[in-house]
């Protein structure tokens, strides 16, 4: 954890030199989903320095997408690219965990 803390400040999407694709599945304006969106936008400022793409999907509006992506849990953040795919459940309040999952540490 100490290691990741230190690296988190220096490393980011920049370091990877690739376009990040992140997809956030939400359930309307349900509190956790709203919070996840805010947290992701915050994270974008601090860690996503390089090229990246964000997509927001409302499962209540399009269940078919949820089905195709097997999204049962909301909010759910999926790192679509670069592979391998990574998934984070929750309102993204624990930044450390999110960064670790997105391989941004």
């Amino acid at each position, binding site marked *: 954890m100490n290691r990741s803390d230190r690296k988190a400040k220096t490393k980011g999407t920049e370091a990877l030199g690739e376009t990040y694709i992140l997809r956030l599945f939400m359930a309307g304006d349900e509190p956790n989903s709203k919070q996840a969106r805010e947290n992701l936008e915050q994270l974008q400022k601090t860690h996503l320095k390089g090229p990246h793409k964000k997509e927001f999907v409302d499962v209540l509006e399009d269940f078919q997408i949820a089905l195709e992506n097997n999204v049962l849990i*909301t909010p759910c953040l999926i790192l679509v690219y670069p592979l391998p795919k990574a998934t984070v459940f929750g309102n993204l309040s624990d930044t450390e965990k999110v960064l670790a999952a997105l391989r941004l540490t």
Partner: protein
Amino acid sequence: MAKRTPNEGTKIPATKARELPKVATGITGLDDVLHGGFPAGRTTLVSGGPGTGKTIVGMEFLYRNAVNGEPGIFVTFEERAEALRKNTLSLGWDLAPLEKDGKFFLFGAHVDPQAAISGDFNVKGLLAIVEGKAKSMGARRIVIDAVDVLMRLFDNPARERNELYALHDWLNDHEMTAVLTLKTSAGGDTSSRYEFLDYMTDCVIQLDQRVVEQVLTRRMRVIKYRGSSYIHKEHPFIIADNGVNIIPVSTVELQHKALGAKVSTGHPRLDTMLDGGYRRASTILISGTGGTGKTTLANTFVEAACERGEKVLYINFEESQEAMVSGMLSAGIDLRPALRDGKLRLMTTVPEAMGAEEHLFQAVRVIEAFRPDHVVLEAMSSCNRMGTKQAAYEYLVRLVNTCKEKGLMMILTNQTAGFKNENEITGMDMSSIIDTVIFVRFIDIGGEINRMLMILKSRGQKSVNQYREFLITDHGIDVRDVYVGVGGVLTGAARQEQEAREVLQARRKRLEIELREQDIKQKRAVMEAEIARSRAELETAEAELKALQLEEGLVQEGRDIRGRMRGEDANSLRLKKRVPRRKGRGTGRKEGAK
């Protein structure tokens, strides 16, 4: 509204008070247990350990409904959809055409185990998918298989609880007839962790599986059913090639058909003993030690019944068809024509081959297909080898009940170790459902072994309650007249000996009686002489007494005369005293009149 189908769910509050709307499960026996099916528009919990058949119960419910045109959604958190499709196909249920028609949706809902968790979340995604699908298909049936797998994600009992309540509310709001399956570990605490589910859901079914003495036994039990009656018992079930088969343990006494007309036992003497023969729809137990002729007795009936054109199913756990047929031939009973004409059907299996449920299921299936008039089971005693005594007992009780419900006559044979234990003779503790008990035994008299037959019980008919001699000849059985003598019942050569002995004894007795009579005569003479002497003595004494009394009388007379002379005063005094007493009474009356 009048044409309410079980699919209408809870939409009709007017009828709610009268009867809960239900959805037929289509699972053999389950609708009988649940008195109609799952509660419509409500949630049923099916819980049980691994491999108890929860998934199949859920799957069969949806499949049967889908086949009947009622679409359903199956959400599985545990098995891969593809694997489940294959397993389902092995039960003869092809989901592919139903899925194509939009009657079935199999959703392999897999939660990525690698997923990181950051902060709070819920299962809105799942609900969105289910809702979207349900809407597009018009589905009102849903099974959520292994809901515990999803719940494990929350890693917190309070959150699990909240999420399950949310799920439950959602299902109710959408009037889904839902089945949640929950895995409980064999002896673990998962059951207490999810105990609230029992309160939350409207109907709770527990499945159980045990291996008792190498035999697998499956059980199901309805724990609760809000607003509905159900059969409160543990019901055995099996998973056969056509799905789940629950054999309801019902309190069927009231459904039993009344004992029917008499049918000949195949032997005229036995008919006489039973006041005409066995009765249709009754259960007859032929009990006795080994080799006493139980099988022969049963087959005497079988041969006669088949000759009359009646159909008999013979369930034999003791010997093969060939062995039984040839054995009976030597006793003059030819079963071959009956077999050839399809009047007699033999089911021969080893009791150990499968569990009691499976045995029962197979027997019931054959009974339903073959439609016999009578069923013979050989032998009750071998049923114990199906597993436990309890399993055997349940098998027998349920088979007997099935026959009774269908109005079939049933003959059970039972090999007993002895003839002292009445419980054993009358067949375990089944005597309440057995109508007639015939007991056959050997009796050893004078170095000769003979067979005896007795009717211990015969419900609803007169019967002879004495032992009869029972013979097996090479042309069938024979029942001989009873011999009732002082020494009890006798058979064979001993009977003749006994008869001769009786004659001698009778003669001896007559002599003895004569002797006794003479003796008594003498004694009486002595006594009479004695009486005469005593009487004479008494008369003398009486005369003496009279003389004394006379003497005393004379003395008394004199005393009286003197006394009377002296007693004038005394008498007048008595008169004087009486007068004032009358006066007093007079005044008293006056006072009273005032």
